[in-house]
């Protein structure tokens, strides 16, 4: 079984150093990049499935050349190889370009399943997986809490989380699955994995390699533009109300009254 996992390098949330440059694009020098947290959950799910069923996991990333460094950690976790789509014309891509480029890269690969994370911690659009499924005409299985492929039958079952509980979906493979954190904590890379990560293949693809034109995708063809960016205002002092429910309610009403909020 062959699974492609979409992995995006994002600014390390733990470093909290994310910053935009004067062009309102991410200043990649300001913050160390890590694999997007939700993508690591998708990768963990993929690794568990190939451990159980045999097969390989390919990482697919669209990023600047430094994306290869971030990909090494995901390779160290156990992925077989990586494909890095990188092209200067891709800087400033909007969501539409991103899914068009990733869909084009997927057309070159053979796979049974494509996994995407629930969303990314930098862009937060959360639609790339769905858009790729639409472009490639793949069954789209979202919010997966459990993934059970049946390679012999060429089908996959997914337990999809819903507000009311869950649905059980079945689709023919190849299919695209949007993974959730319910699938299980990502593993730490093993030290053998780390030492062998450098010897694993990362294939680089430019727009020309994918038969795409920098005039129709990427920064030049962006459909959205960032006009401004602000940090959330700092939180004011917090008041903690203690006591019984009745005392608490009275104190909160008094507080809201003094602020003229009620």
């Amino acid at each position: 079984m062959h699974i492609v996992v979409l992995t995006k390098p994002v600014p390390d949330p733990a470093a909290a150093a994310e910053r935009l440059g004067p062009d309102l694009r991410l200043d990649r020098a300001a913050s160390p990049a890590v694999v997007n947290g939700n993508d690591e959950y998708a990768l963990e799910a993929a690794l568990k499935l190939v451990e159980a069923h045999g097969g390989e996991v390919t990482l697919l990333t669209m990023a600047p050349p430094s994306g290869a460094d971030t990909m090494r950690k995901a390779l160290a976790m156990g992925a077989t190889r990586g494909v890095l789509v990188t092209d200067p014309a891709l800087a400033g891509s909007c969501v539409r370009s991103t899914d068009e480029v990733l869909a084009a890269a997927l057309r070159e690969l053979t796979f049974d399943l494509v996994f995407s994370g629930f969303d990314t911690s930098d862009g937060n659009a959360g639609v790339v997986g769905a858009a790729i499924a639409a472009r490639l005409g793949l069954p789209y299985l979202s919010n997966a809490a459990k993934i059970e492929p049946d390679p012999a039958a060429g089908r996959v079952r997914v337990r999809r989380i819903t507000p009311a509980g869950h649905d059980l979906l079945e689709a023919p493979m190849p299919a695209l699955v949007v993974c959730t954190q319910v699938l299980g904590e990502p593993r730490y890379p093993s030290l053998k994995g780390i030492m062998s990560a450098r010897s694993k293949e990362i294939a680089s693809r430019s727009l020309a390699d994918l038969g795409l034109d920098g005039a129709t995708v990427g920064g030049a063809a962006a459909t959205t533009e960032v006009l401004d960016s602000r940090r959330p205002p700092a939180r004011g002092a917090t008041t903690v109300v203690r006591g019984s429910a009745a005392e608490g309610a009275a104190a909160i009403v008094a507080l809201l009254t003094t602020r003229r909020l009620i």
Partner: protein
Amino acid sequence: MSTPPSGHRLTEEQILLRDTLRELADARIAPRAADIDRSGEFPEDIRRLLAQHDVLGLPFPAEHGGVGGDLLTVCLAIEQIARACTTSSLILAVQDLGSLPLRLGGSEDQLARWVPRLASGETLICFGLTEPEAGSDAAALRTTAVRDGDDYLVSGTKRFITNGSVAGLVTIFAVTNPEAPRHRRLSCFIVEVPTQGFRVARLEHKMGIRGSPTAELELTSVRVPAANRIGDEGDGWDLAMRTFERSRPGIAAQAVGIAQGALEAASAYARERKQFGQRIGDFQMVASMLADMDAQVEAARQLLYTACEVIESGAPDAARWAAMCKLVAGDTAMRVTTDAVQVFGGYGYVDEFPVERMMRDAKITQLYEGTQQIQRLVIARALLGRGRD
């Protein structure tokens, strides 16, 4: 201390390995450290965790199932584990120490026989040199190995043997030729235990590294096949000294890790704790201590990393570098952990915070694998040449 220590000399793999181990240690080992110290029990769960993540395979060659890490890589791992729990870091440090004579002088057959199960972490190994009457004066060993057909009969007492009660393989140094010159008297053997005549006589009650069993081992005519001898008869002393050239940096790494852990704890406390209406870190006397601690830890770390590179390159004065990094790092760990307790004030003296444990743990790094006085002797001999002897 949100930024990791500088990694200008580290490879991409070493940085990833260091960061992975830091995360693993923070998430899985640090929460166990106080309990391991309090109970004094060997942390079998941590041994399994380290084995599962190939950490115990780090010092061993890849062709025998190891990870093939060089000296600096092994030290990075020990440092990150020690930052969270000294006892846990000793599991790797002693797997490294105990197996060094085998790795330095073992035949291909011997490597194939023992390394795979050491690299997988299934079997632990310990280092049996020290005796009740032969500590710093290691050439004064009394344990004997007497040839008997295809075997040796080994008898004697080994003391202060770290992990001696949990190891399945024991590297034993014993006198094979009492008549030979001082440095040709010893030979080195791998003893598979349990075996007839081998007994863990007792465990020490210690000030620190309390989860790491320090055993007295009694050997009474233990039959050891000649095939278990590492190198030739008389090679023991040389093997022990070459072992220390590569194991002392491991203790330095442990010391740097302990000091780093104490520095981070003290800095965090100095940011939080308020007295006289301000953070205690804003008082110059406290700030000054923290600044000195940070500078000293980084200096010790950089000396250690340089020592690792020099030793790995096969420099003729490897013993000097090993002694220097252990000396500086051990003294730094003692000073920094003592100051960390001071930053915490009364809270530093109770086990609600980790710094008192770190201070107790730091002391051992000035004592084992050669006391600081022995390190100075080694360094001075490299400077002055050997005098009377």
